[in-house]
């Protein structure tokens, strides 16, 4: 069973019904035991970084997330759910889960005339094979069960965020997106996947990605 972690942040139903649409049952829960028993875990998230971490703590979900990830089963972070995996965030200087080393930074376009939040449909560029860790390459881009199976380079997804992730180890970046600068829009490390965009709001190709994840 796919488990969507409920810690009081954001519209989880939209993630659940997107999975349902592609034939995957998903359970929304804040029960730590259910998280541990899941076959796959999805961590969504909107709002403020600090508030999300505080809510995860309050719901006693941090330890179950660590333990689930250690099992090697597939884990997907969406938007803020991706950012939470990082070491620290500029947003209030809060410490994250530190599962992927790196920082969460704010877009600063004061002199470029670009709007923040980065809001709307933007394209992903798959990272060149030479720059991606071999195991991530297969898992994300080229394997028979990759999450990007059937999703062409340059596909559009729906973004809405003011912060982006900057991993220390660039080989975890499997796709980037251009907005004032080139930022990591899909990250993968071992069994962990993260998208800065919202696949559940990205119509056909977003659903395709969730289907791929569900079939891992």
């Amino acid at each position, binding site marked *: 069973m796919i488990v969507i972690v409920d810690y009081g942040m954001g*519209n989880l139903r*939209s993630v659940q019904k997107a999975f349902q649409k592609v034939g995957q049952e998903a359970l929304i829960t804040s029960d730590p035991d259910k998280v541990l028993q899941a076959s796959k875990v999805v961590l969504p998230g909107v709002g403020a970084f600090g508030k999300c971490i505080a809510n995860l703590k309050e719901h006693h979900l941090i330890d179950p997330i660590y333990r689930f990830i250690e099992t090697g089963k597939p884990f997907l972070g969406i938007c803020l759910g991706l950012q939470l995996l990082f070491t620290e965030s500029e947003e209030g200087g809060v410490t994250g889960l530190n599962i992927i080393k790196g920082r969460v930074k704010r877009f600063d376009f004061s002199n470029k005339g670009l*709007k923040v*939040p980065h809001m*709307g449909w933007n394209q992903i560029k798959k990272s060149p094979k030479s720059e991606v860790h071999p195991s991530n390459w297969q898992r994300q881009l080229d394997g028979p069960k990759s999450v990007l199976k059937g999703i062409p380079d340059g596909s559009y997804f*729906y973004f809405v965020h*003011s912060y982006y992730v900057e991993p220390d180890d660039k080989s975890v970046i499997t796709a980037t997106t*251009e907005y004032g600068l080139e930022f990591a829009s899909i990250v993968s490390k071992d069994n962990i996947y993260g998208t800065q965009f919202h696949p559940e709001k*990205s119509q056909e190709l977003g659903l395709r990605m969730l289907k791929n994840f569900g079939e891992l």
Partner: protein
Amino acid sequence: MLAKRIIPCLDVDEGKVVKGVKFVNLRDAGDPAEIGAIYDKEKADELVFLDITASLEKRDIIIEVVRRTAEKIFMPLTVGGGIRDLEDIRKLLKVGADKVSINTAAVKNPSLVTEAAKKFGSQCIVVAIDAKRIVTPLPRPPVTRLKTGKLANRRTGKPKWEVYINGGRTPTGWDVLEWAKRVDKLGAGEILLTSMDCDGTKKGYDLELTRKISEAVSIPVIASGGAGNLEHLYQALTEGKADAVLAASIFHFREYSIREAKEYLKKKGVAVRL
């Protein structure tokens, strides 16, 4: 590259679409959920519902409509109209709206924008501004009568726009530019800017207004009011510097499909998602 967004808007009264929609293959032409699903298939970039239900008792009908629509679509859904407080926002987000658009309540209580952004995130708080152009008369010389007998154009100096609330019925005396800048600072994620002068005319957006506001704020601006053809969309996105365009009748009456609009814009060099 970030695509410019094309957003169809539906006026919903007591759970039914008003102003008519002409789609073939519709079982119920008045059902917002069904129309929403069609726009989703056509790859509209977002969908906006404007709840124009006047009576307070019937306001909750929109909740059910949003719930049903959210089940069917996989793109962002914004709901506006009659939102008064945090509880109204919470209810709409809970049943599947991705964003809410606040207008009158934001003017009456600007701190609502900040509180809502803190509680639910800036990304889901849209502030709608209804703008009406003010004709600023010259202090002197006074109005002169031309030989033709017509009055000389009194519209001089810098154009200004006034903020209206209560569905465009009540002038506030507030300057749109100042209010837009303040909305940005208050923590809104986006501005939905409607020109009352152009709305319904099908003669094009108020490009001067759109550009002025878009250049003055750091958040995205959706242009609204006046779309009559595809060239108008193009103008708003280029000359008007809007990040997105909202349109109702040109899509509802099938004058153009979403795809036709996007293909037209793409041909003219605008970044859109086909």
